[in-house]
C-alpha cells in the first residue's frame, strides 16, 4: 500500500477539527488513507486548548504587577539596548580599540608587577620582581642630594677614589663582610625576611648608588670618619635632626648617600646605620 503524504492526512485532520469536513467525507475522498485517518482523527480531536485551564483575572493582574516591577528595576533591560550599544561601539575608530587593549595590557602588567613586589626567591614571580627592580633602578632619577650636594659641600677631596669612598664610608671597618657591604644588603640578624622583601630594595638601591655614583657628601663622610676635622665639624653642625632624617632615608634606600656620620645617641641614626650596612 502506498504511503499517504503527510500534507493530505494533515489537511483532512485540520478540516475535521475545524468542522469543514467529516471523517467519512475525508475517507471517501482518500480511501487509500482511510485506516490512518480513522486512527489519527480521534487523537487530533482530543487535543484541545479548551482543556487547559484559563488564567484568572487576579493571576493576570498579579503577574503584570510583578513583571513591571521586575523589568523597571535595574538589571533588566531589553536586548535592543545592548544591540544599540554594540552598534555604536562598532563604529568607533580602530585606534580606540587599540588604546583600550593597550591600557588593559598596561593594567595587567602593573598588577603583576605589584604582586611581584614581595615575592620570595622561590616564587614564580621572583624573576619579575628582579626585572622590575632593574627597570626601576634604570629609570629612577638621581637623588636630590647627589647633584646639588656639590654646592652644599664645597670641600671635596679630589684624590679620594670614587669606588672606595662609599664602601669605606658606609660602615666602620670590619663591621660586615665585604660582599655584604658591596650589595648593601642588611644583615639577616637585623631584619626579618619579610622586611628584606621590600626594605632590601631600598637598601640595595642605596648600595648601588654608593658604588656607582659616589656622592660628595659620602666622600666628606669618609673624610670625617678618617679623622678629617673639617668634615667632622660640618657633620656635627648638621646635628641630630639630620640623623633622624638619615634613619628615614635608609628605609627608602636613599639615606646612605647623604647620611653624615651617625650620632650614637640617636636610635634613628642607629637604624639608619644598620640599613646602610
Amino acid at each position, binding site marked *: 500500500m502506498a504511503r499517504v503524504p503527510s500534507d493530505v492526512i494533515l489537511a483532512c485532520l485540520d478540516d475535521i477539527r475545524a468542522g469543514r469536513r467529516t471523517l467519512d467525507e475525508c475517507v471517501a475522498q482518500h480511501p487509500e488513507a482511510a485506516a490512518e485517518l480513522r486512527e489519527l482523527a480521534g487523537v487530533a480531536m482530543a487535543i484541545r486548548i479548551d482543556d487547559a485551564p484559563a*488564567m484568572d483575572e487576579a493571576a493576570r493582574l498579579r503577574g503584570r504587577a510583578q513583571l513591571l516591577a521586575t523589568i523597571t528595576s535595574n538589571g533588566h533591560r531589553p536586548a*535592543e539596548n545592548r544591540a544599540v550599544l554594540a552598534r555604536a561601539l562598532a563604529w568607533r575608530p580602530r585606534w580606540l580599540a587599540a588604546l583600550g587593549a593597550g591600557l588593559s595590557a598596561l593594567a595587567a602588567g602593573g598588577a603583576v608587577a605589584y604582586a611581584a613586589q614581595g615575592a620570595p626567591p622561590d616564587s614564580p614571580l621572583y624573576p619579575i620582581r628582579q626585572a622590575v627592580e632593574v627597570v626601576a633602578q634604570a629609570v629612577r632619577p638621581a637623588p636630590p642630594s647627589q647633584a646639588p650636594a656639590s654646592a652644599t659641600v664645597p670641600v671635596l677631596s679630589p684624590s679620594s677614589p670614587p669606588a672606595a669612598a662609599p664602601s669605606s664610608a658606609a660602615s666602620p671597618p670590619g663591621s660586615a663582610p665585604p660582599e655584604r657591604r658591596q650589595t648593601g644588603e642588611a644583615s639577616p640578624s637585623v631584619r626579618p625576611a619579610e622586611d628584606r622583601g621590600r626594605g632590601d630594595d631600598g637598601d640595595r638601591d642605596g648600595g648601588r648608588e654608593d658604588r656607582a655614583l659616589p656622592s660628595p657628601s659620602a666622600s666628606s663622610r669618609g673624610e670625617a670618619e678618617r679623622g678629617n676635622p673639617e668634615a667632622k665639624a660640618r657633620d656635627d653642625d648638621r646635628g641630630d635632626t639630620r640623623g633622624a632624617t638619615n634613619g628615614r632615608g635608609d628605609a627608602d634606600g636613599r639615606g646612605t648617600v647623604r647620611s653624615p656620620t651617625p650620632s650614637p645617641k640617636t636610635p634613628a641614626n642607629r637604624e639608619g646605620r644598620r640599613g646602610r650596612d
Partner: protein
Amino acid sequence: MATALETWPDVDLIESARGGNALAFAVLYDRYADRVYRHIAYRVGVPDCEDLTQQTFLKAWQAIGRYRVMDVPFVAWLLTIAHNIVVSYYRARREHQPLVDDVPKIDERADPHRQAERNERQRMVRQAISRLKPEFQQVVAMRYLEELDYADIARQLGKRENTVRVTLHRALHELRKHLLEAV
C-alpha cells in the same frame, strides 16, 4: 498613557518596548498572557504555570531586541520561549509526570459521569503529550493548541513547511501509541 497604549498594534508596542518602554510591554503581556498561560498549563499543569508564564515574559523582555517582526507572529515567538522554558523545567525536575496533580475544570451543569470521563480523557491526552519528545511537543502545541499555521511554525522553528508537516504527522502517531499504552 496605558489606555492609549492599549489601542496600539503589536508592531508599535514591540518597537516601543525595544526602546525600554515597560508599559508598552505590559500591554503585550495583557494581550498574550492568557494564551501563554494555557499553553504552559496544558503541558506542565497548574501549580507552576503562573511562575513559568512570568519567566516567559521576562525572557521575552530581555530578548525583544532580537525579535524580528516580519519573521513570525509575536505570539508564536512567545510560545517558542514558553516551550524552551517548559523543556528546562522538565530537565530541572527530571521527571515527566506533570499532569497527574492538575486540577480539571468543573462544569457543574454537565452530567457528573460524563464530566468525569471527559476530565480523565483530558488528563490522559496531556500526559501523553508530555511524554513526547520536545520537538514533537512543540509542533503539536503550536499547531493544535495555538492554531498557528504551518508557515508561521516553520519560520519560528527555522524549518521548511513540509518538514513541520512530517514532524506533526509523526508526532500524532507517537501520541496515539502513548494513548494506547495508557488505556
